[in-house]
């Protein structure tokens, strides 16, 4: 396997955008090509487009050639859409990485696009209810908010986790997103504001939940040995891990502990040849506040059930045990499903380059991990990045 580097990328502003799916793709594509020297669309041999539900959100399938056409890319090796719901962008990244690492191609683009705002938002909500097993879980209106609400309830029941501790995740990530100009949410929130926000599905309130978001992003991957042709400050892909157990709610390994994440972490650390203590930045999938608490535990930064205490003690802030979501997370930046993992990798690259505002800069960071969960937290996908 060849070493692979990310040599640049670009993204749109995220949020409720007055733009179509393909316009978002064009914006991100221009930003991506503008950021990489000595690269033209003609050089791109592989294009992987992470998109969770374009067929439902914009009634368009076969979207990878649509992106290719819009960006003047004529792939000669690999082209496909990748779907893994909330981790669709990471699926694109993983396949682009595998294409370059294997020697199948020398220039691959991992792209991600999601347009989630619809004329009829009830239709958007409906789309999100076929993510779990539609016939046996979705039929009970089991979408992400009620599933993660029950996850939070079990965590509170088993470990005495509190709504205040969950709110702290929202406070932290909204704080960092105020320093991220492309983030959907640009305002600080207080614990009180989170606790008093509109109840979605108890115990989860509006600010416990990531938003509905339009956005797109793309990054360029090449063999590490070629990286200097395109940039002076590349980012290396150091390792990865991915694990899945079950799909329907009945077949999960556990509700209150994310066992596939523990497996994926072990694999990511092994392939990157690092230990947990080496991780300076962790971009974790905070689709809901409870998610981030359970991720601290599954990674092993704290014991099972102690995620709430971990944030109470300030450990996931910059300067603590590990800087978690200094980008602003999904809670602060929004969650344009297919684009999220690409946005994470882009921001980690900017961290390594020192190209983020000082208030959210993790100084001298060398190693970062990016995580996405999908479905009923039954799939966990990880990439490990290293300063090049």
């Amino acid at each position, binding site marked *: 396997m060849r070493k692979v580097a990310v040599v640049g990328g670009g993204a749109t502003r995220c949020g409720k955008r007055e733009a179509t799916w393909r316009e978002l793709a064009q914006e991100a594509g221009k930003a991506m090509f503008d950021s990489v020297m000595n690269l033209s669309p003609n050089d791109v041999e592989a294009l992987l487009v992470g998109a969770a539900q374009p067929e439902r959100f914009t009634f368009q399938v076969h979207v990878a050639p649509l992106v290719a056409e819009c960006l003047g890319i004529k792939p000669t090796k690999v082209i496909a859409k990748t779907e893994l719901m909330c981790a669709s962008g990471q699926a694109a990244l993983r396949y682009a990485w595998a294409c370059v690492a294997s020697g199948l191609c020398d220039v691959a683009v991992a792209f991600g696009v999601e347009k989630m705002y619809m004329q009829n938002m*009830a*239709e958007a*909500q*409906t789309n*999100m*209810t*076929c993510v*779990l*097993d*539609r*016939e*046996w*879980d*979705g*039929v*009970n*209106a*089991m*979408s992400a*908010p*009620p599933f993660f*609400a*029950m*996850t939070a*309830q*079990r965590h509170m*029941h088993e470990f005495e986790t509190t709504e205040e501790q969950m709110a702290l995740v929202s406070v932290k990530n909204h704080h960092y997103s105020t320093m991220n100009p492309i983030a959907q949410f640009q305002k600080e929130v207080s614990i009180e504001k989170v606790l008093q926000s*509109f*109840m*979605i*599905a*108890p*115990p*989860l309130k509006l600010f416990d939940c990531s938003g509905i978001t339009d956005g797109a992003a793309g990054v360029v991957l090449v063999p590490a040995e070629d990286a200097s042709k395109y940039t002076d400050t590349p980012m290396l892909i150091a390792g990865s891990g991915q694990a899945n157990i079950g799909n*329907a*709610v*009945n*077949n*999960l390994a556990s*509700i209150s502990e994310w066992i596939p994440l523990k497996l994926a972490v072990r694999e990511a650390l092994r392939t990157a040849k690092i230990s947990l203590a080496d991780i300076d930045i962790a971009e974790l999938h905070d689709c809901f506040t409870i998610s981030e608490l359970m991720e601290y535990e599954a990674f092993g930064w704290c014991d099972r059930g102690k995620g709430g205490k971990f944030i109470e003690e300030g450990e996931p802030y910059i300067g603590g045990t590990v800087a978690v979501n200094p980008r602003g997370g999904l809670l602060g930046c929004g969650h344009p499903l297919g684009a999220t993992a690409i946005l994470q990798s882009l921001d980690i690259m900017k961290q390594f380059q020192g190209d983020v505002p000082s208030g959210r800069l993790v100084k001298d960071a060398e190693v970062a991990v990016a995580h996405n969960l999908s479905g009923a937290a039954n799939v966990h996908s990880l990439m490990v990045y290293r300063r090049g």
Partner: protein
Amino acid sequence: MKDDIEKIAQPEKITLPQMLDFYPLEDEKNTRISQFFQNLKMGHLTTTKCKSCRSVLWPPRVVCSNCMSDDLEWVNLGTEGELYAFTEMKAGAPLGFEKDLPFCIGLVKIGGLLLSSRIDGVRYEDLKIGQKVQLKVVELENDGRVFYRFKV
């Protein structure tokens, strides 16, 4: 120029057969687990059990996911479950369920399985973890398809 623009009609609403229908198709023409729904019509919540490795499988299957045997039998899960977790949908229900808001959803332990289910006739404040819940069958008015729920 404007006189040349021809107005064309588009229906106010387009019917989308099955597209956004959450309920499974249950007759023999559409599924090989039609027996599940026939049993449910009789008031029995059942699932498939592998005759070869004895695994109880949920959702019902035609091939055992544990040993790949296709020799399965129907087993009754009983009518009383225990509430493992619950919440209440306050907003954001999918199309077709909006009129039911607010409504409770739970994870119910029954017959060694963990089923997601609507929990009918109760508010969030009145539920607690570990509470007993009873099987309830609902039938769609328009075509007679059935599905399971639980009630307090």
